[in-house]
């Protein structure tokens, strides 16, 4: 048998302290569709970025068609015939299909007359090869998402790609578009191209792939022929791990009902029919895949995208937050997902960051009292054990975990009754992570109702008193806190447990 098209051995990569990949083996043969499966954060994206030359591995070898490649850059990856089709196509929207394809494939000297006729013909030919009914003269802006993906695939073909990577290509496609895409993938396979296919949807993997490799915590758990494995076994491979962390124990008896949602929905953000209860002293975990609508739900509750149907009851009273200001006044706090973009303001001192949401309450009149602000900041710094030079240090001087604590402090300062945490430990090192877990548990003990959104499965399992699973914009199941990983993952993937 010929050498595989792509062979990865013992690939490892760390970002800062976080180990994204810790020894991954993977191979891909010509004329094969090889699916890559794993939870959020299992290392799929990092793996793809290494293969396309965007990241360099810390160690491990990459062999392409039997040749060891030492220094893979985006340019060499392109030259070696590696192409990646992302979920969001990276085309130039104001140029035509022909121009986009030409930009990818040709490297003309800047000043020379271009033979547009030949280019249009080539574009037409490539599009015909994948059975796409798209005019080469169409502006990319006018094309639908799947059509743009087809143009990407045409580019890849035109470049003579031997290895095509598809990263969740069906995430935004309708059933019919999906079938068209599958036909194209099968076409590629028949013509001897190797396809790495990344998807969360198990049914697609069974419909399309020849083999499947499961990644978990940056390691390859196993590679199987699709014909020899079933869904249950795949899910087991994705979640089967020992609890490496000790989670603080939960509260035995939650208190009064704090938040109740009745058939809540918002057409603009795709959330519909969510019904759930969260009690004082309870950590309600919200699990699901990326795009399942969890952050969108949080944004509704925080008044960022107000609900257009259903009811929100806070302590039994119906409320309708229409802005963050409303939400804060009602006692709802939201620690957002992306702390670098929406959380801690890096330029401002820690103390300013902590009091950002409470000017109106704590500082009577308009005059800021620095003494009071400093005291408050020092209190939070001690209380949450924020490691920092002092309340005057800028947010940028902190590590990720400590930034997250500052973001948390800002919201605790508003004295909320209901706290939404969106991925509170994403990109945080292990030590800070367990500190944040202890803080969450303590807050719950103090009577706060906590909604914990997390893609970190062990975290949801370990921290939650109950676990809600969202899928396709709605809450599908609520499981008890002692549910097992398999049940949660099955529900998130939409499989019968």
């Amino acid at each position, binding site marked *: 048998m010929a050498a595989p098209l792509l062979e990865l051995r013992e690939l490892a990569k760390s970002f800062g302290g976080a180990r994204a990949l810790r020894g991954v083996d993977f191979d891909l043969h010509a004329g094969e569709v090889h699916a890559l499966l794993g939870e959020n954060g299992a290392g799929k994206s990092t793996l793809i970025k290494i293969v396309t030359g965007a990241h360099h591995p810390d160690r491990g070898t990459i062999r392409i068609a039997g040749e060891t490649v030492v220094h893979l850059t985006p340019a060499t990856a392109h030259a070696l015939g590696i192409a990646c089709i992302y979920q969001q196509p990276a085309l130039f929207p104001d140029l035509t299909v022909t121009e986009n394809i030409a930009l990818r494939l040709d490297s003309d000297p800047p000043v020379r007359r271009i033979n547009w006729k030949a280019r249009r013909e080539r574009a037409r030919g490539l599009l015909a090869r994948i059975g796409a009914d798209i005019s080469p003269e169409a502006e990319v802006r006018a094309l639908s998402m799947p059509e743009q993906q087809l143009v990407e695939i045409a580019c890849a073909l035109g470049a003579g790609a031997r290895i095509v990577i598809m990263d969740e290509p069906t995430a935004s496609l309708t059933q019919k578009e999906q079938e068209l895409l599958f036909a194209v993938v099968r076409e590629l396979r028949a013509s001897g191209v190797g396809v790495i296919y990344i998807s969360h949807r198990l049914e697609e993997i069974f419909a399309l792939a020849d083999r499947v490799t499961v990644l978990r915590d940056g390691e390859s758990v196993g590679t199987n022929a699709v014909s020899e494995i079933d869904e249950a076994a795949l899910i087991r491979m994705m979640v089967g791990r020992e609890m490496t962390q000790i989670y603080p124990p939960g509260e035995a008896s939650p208190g009064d009902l704090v938040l109740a949602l009745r058939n809540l929905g918002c057409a603009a953000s795709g959330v519909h029919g969510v019904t759930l209860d969260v009690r004082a002293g309870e950590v309600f975990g919200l699990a699901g895949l990326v795009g399942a609508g969890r952050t969108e739900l949080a944004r509704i509750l*925080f008044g*960022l995208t107000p609900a257009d149907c259903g009811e929100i009851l806070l302590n039994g009273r119906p409320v309708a937050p229409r*802005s*963050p*200001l409303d939400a*804060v006044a009602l006692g709802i706090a*939201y620690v*957002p997902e992306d702390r670098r*973009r*929406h*959380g*801690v*303001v*890096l*330029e*401002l001192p820690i103390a*300013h960051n902590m009091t*950002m*949401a409470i*000017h*109106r309450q704590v*500082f009577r009149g*308009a*005059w*800021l009292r*620095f003494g009071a602000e400093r005291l408050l900041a020092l209190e939070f710094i001690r209380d949450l054990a924020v490691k920092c030079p002092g309340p*005057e240090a*800028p947010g*940028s001087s902190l590590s990720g975990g400590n930034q997250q604590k500052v973001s948390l402090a*800002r919201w605790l300062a508003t004295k909320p009754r209901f706290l939404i945490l969106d991925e509170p430990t994403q990109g945080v090192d292990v030590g800070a992570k367990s500190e944040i877990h202890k803080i969450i548990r303590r807050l719950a003990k103090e009577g706060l109702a906590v909604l914990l959104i997390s893609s970190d499965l062990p975290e949801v399992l370990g921290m939650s008193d109950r676990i809600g699973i969202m899928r396709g914009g709605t809450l599908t199941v609520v499981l008890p806190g002692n549910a097992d990983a398999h049940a949660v993952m099955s529900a998130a993937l939409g499989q019968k447990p």
Partner: protein
Amino acid sequence: MSRHFRELSVAAALAAVLVALAIFAPAFFQPQPLLSLVTREAPTLVVACGMTLVIICRQIDISVGSQFSVCSVCAGLLAAMNWPLALVPPAAIATGALLGAVNGVLIAGLRLPSIVVTLAMMVTLRQGLNMVRQGEFVNLPDRVQWFGLSQVDGQWALVFTALLLLVVLGLAMRHLAAGRFVYAIGSDAEAARLSGIRPQLGTFLVFVFMGGLTGLAAAMNMMQSPQVQPLAGSGLELKVIAAVVVGGVAISGGRGNLWGAFTGLLLLACIAPALTHLHIESYWEKAIQGAIILLAVVADSVRSRNEIR
């Protein structure tokens, strides 16, 4: 220390220029010419205060020069119509605030980029003024110049007004919640919004404030001469933005303060008289100012790159 490094380094540069002048051209420090120099810069300082807020808010206003001209002409015409002198500056401020509100609505309300909006505003106001006034000067009644005070008293009054504004605004930016909002909006509008601050409203008000201060500056400028020229404000925007940037206010928003802008303005304002006193040809003025601005921008970029690590 390191937190104010940028402001202190501008102050050090200013001190160095002043020391050099004290040694080589002590004539610079004669009280009367110095007071005249400072008085001429007083309106610029007022506009620079507003511009500092605008830039901290991660916006820019290049229409201040044209706004200044319009406010000057309006104030001049009112004074020439024998309005009571006490009402002329408020009228100028109101005119400026109105122009600022137009900018504010377009930028904050329609979320258009401030550079484009204020560029359009700059050109429109300038050409409109040319069309209406045909370049005609407004001759002012005698009682307008120096408020009818003696020249020295009038000069002190203007300098005092500008410094008072600087101090009050500087304290307000530090001690009022509103000041903190401006920093928060400029640093990260989305984080500010999530924290219950209304970034669009804040931005709008900053532009209104900028316009009002421009009007005040125009009135202060009018008090210094017997007539108003319709091009009084041309080039003002560049001078003011340069001073603010030299003073360490980051063009990317959220960082810097009024004290820095103040020292930056003094530094740039010293260059021209210093050249005269040192008998260097005045052609060098713009070149040296340009070099200082470039140096300031490079210093900022190096600093922020070091911080990202």
